[in-house]
C-alpha cells in the first residue's frame, strides 16, 4: 500500500457522556475507494464528520487523538478549518442542494474561494457537471432552482458542487440510501471513475455496495474498528469472528 492520505491515530470521540468512537486507528489509502462498513449507529457518520470537523457543530463534544491529513494533524486548535474542509467534498445521505439555481450550486464553492467572473466560472461549472455525469441532463436548465431536479440528479449535483472546490478526498455518507437503484448505480460508477483523481471514503451499511466498489474496507461495530484491510481479503478471509458474523448477515 502506498502512503496513506489520511491516518487516524487513537481517536476517541464523546458526545457528552456517550462514547461514540473508541480508540479508532485507521489508514486510508490514496486514490482508492475506502468503504467504512458497519451496522447503523456504529459511529460511521461521526467518524466521517470528524475528518472534516463538522463534529465541531455539536455541543459537548470531546475529541482526543490525532487525524493526519497530508501529514498535518487537523484536530489541532490552530488549523484553519475552512482550508481543511475544502480539501474534502462531502456527500450526505439526503442530497442537500443549496437554495439557489443549478449553476450557482456548482459555482458556490468557487465563488467563495475567489473566482467571481461568470466567464471564468462557466467552463468550470460545465467541467464539474460532466465529472458528476449530470451535464447532459441539466445543460439547458442551468438557471432552474436546484430543488426542481430529481433526488438522484440532486445527489449528482451535490457531487459536482463538491468537486468544484478541487478536493483531494470525497467523503460520502451513505450517498445512495435515498436514491432509486438506477441513480445509485450511476453514483457508484462515478465513484469508480473518480478514484483516478480523488480519494473516496464511502460510509455505507449496504454490504453489496461495498463488495461492488470497495478497494479497502474498514469494518466498525459499536464505535470500534473491528477489522480493516484490502477488500478481497476482507471478504474472502475475514479474521475476526464479528466480521464473519456480519458478512453472514447477523447484524442487519
Amino acid at each position: 500500500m502506498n502512503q496513506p492520505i489520511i491516518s487516524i491515530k487513537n481517536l476517541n470521540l464523546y458526545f457528552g457522556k456517550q462514547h461514540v468512537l473508541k480508540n479508532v486507528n485507521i489508514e486510508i489509502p490514496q486514490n482508492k475507494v475506502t468503504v467504512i462498513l458497519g451496522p447503523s449507529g456504529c459511529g460511521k457518520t461521526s467518524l466521517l464528520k470528524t475528518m472534516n470537523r463538522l463534529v465541531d457543530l455539536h455541543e459537548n463534544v470531546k475529541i482526543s487523538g490525532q487525524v493526519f491529513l497530508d501529514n498535518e494533524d487537523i484536530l489541532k486548535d490552530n488549523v484553519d478549518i475552512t482550508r481543511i474542509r475544502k480539501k474534502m467534498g462531502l456527500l450526505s445521505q439526503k442530497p442537500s442542494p443549496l437554495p439557489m439555481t443549478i449553476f450557482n450550486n456548482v459555482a458556490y464553492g468557487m465563488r467563495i474561494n475567489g473566482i467571481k467572473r461568470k466567464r471564468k466560472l462557466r467552463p468550470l461549472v460545465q467541467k464539474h457537471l460532466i465529472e458528476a455525469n449530470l451535464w447532459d441532463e441539466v445543460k439547458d436548465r442551468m438557471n432552474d432552482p436546484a430543488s426542481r431536479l430529481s433526488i438522484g440528479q440532486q445527489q449528482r449535483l451535490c457531487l459536482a458542487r463538491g468537486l468544484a472546490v478541487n478536493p483531494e478526498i470525497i467523503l460520502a455518507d451513505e450517498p445512495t440510501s435515498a436514491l432509486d437503484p438506477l441513480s445509485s448505480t450511476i453514483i457508484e460508477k462515478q465513484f469508480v471513475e473518480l478514484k483516478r483523481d480523488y480519494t473516496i471514503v464511502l460510509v455505507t451499511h449496504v454490504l453489496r455496495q461495498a463488495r461492488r466498489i470497495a478497494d479497502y474496507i474498514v469494518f466498525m461495530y459499536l464505535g470500534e474498528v473491528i477489522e480493516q484491510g484490502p477488500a478481497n481479503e476482507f471478504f474472502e478471509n475475514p479474521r475476526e469472528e464479528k466480521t464473519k458474523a456480519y458478512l453472514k448477515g447477523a447484524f442487519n
Partner: protein
Amino acid sequence: MYLKARKIKDRISGGWVQLVLVFVFVLPLGILASLLYKSWLIMQTTGIGDLLFSSVWRPLAGEFGFFPFIISSIWVTILGLLITAPICLFTAIYLTYYGSNRLSVFMRPVIDILAGIPSVIYGVWGVLIIIPFTGRFLAPLFGYESTGFSIMAGGLVLAIMLIPFILNILIEIFRTVPVEQYEASLSLGATQWESIKHVVVRRSFPGIVSAFALGLSRAFGETIAVLMVVGNVVGVPENLFQPGYPLPALIANNYGEMLSIPMFDSALMFAALILLVVVVFFNLLSRFVIIYLEKRQ
C-alpha cells in the same frame, strides 16, 4: 338505538364545528361592513380623496383631513421597523447559530415575557426613559430641539415592542433550515458567516419578509404605548423629532368624548377603516410575496 344516538351526536357536533368556522370567517367581514356603514356618511360628504390627502383638521367646522395622521402613522411604523429589523435579525442568527443550547433555552422565556408585557407598561417606561433620552440626547445629537414627545420616541418604543414578536418568528424560521444545507456550505470551505448569509438567510428569505410584514401590521395598529410618547399634536411633522398623531391614537383619544360634534363619529370610523384596510393589505401582500419567492427557489 345506540347507533342512532351516536349518529345524532355526530351530526350535532359536526354542525357545531361548521357553525364556529362560519363565525370565524364572517367576523372580519362583519367588522369591515360595520366600519363601512358608519363611515359612509363622511365619505359621501367630504370624498375619499379629500379625507386622505387634506391636512386641514377642523372638526368643529366639519373639515376632516386625515393626512397628518396617516403620515404620522407611516413615519412611526417605518421608523420602528427600521430600528428593530437589524436587532431581530442578528439576535435570531446568534441564538440559532452561534449561541449554546443553554443560552437559547434561557432566552426563550425571556423573549416570551417581553412579548407578554402589557403595552401600557412599554408606554410608561417610554415616558420615563425614552422621552428624556430622545429630548435631551438624541435630538441635540442630530441638531434639533425637542421635548422628547416625538415621532422618534414613538418609533423607539414601537421598535422595542416589536422585538419579541418578530424575534420569535425569525427563530422559528431559522430552525426550519435543514442543517444538512448549512453543513454542505461549511464543507465547501465557506466560513460560518458566509454559510449563514448565502444559505440560511437566503433560504429563509420569504419567511423573513413575512415576519417583517406581520410586524408592520402590528406596528401600524399599536395604540396605547405609541399614544403615550408620540405627543399627539395634529400637524404634518417636518422631522422625526416633532410630535405626531398616529391614527390609532386619534381614535383612542377621541372616541366617546367628542361625539357631540356632528360627523366626528363617522370620521373616526373612517380612521378605523383606514387602519383595517392597511393591515389587511400588508397581510395579503406578504402572503403573495411568500408564494412568489418560494416558487422561485
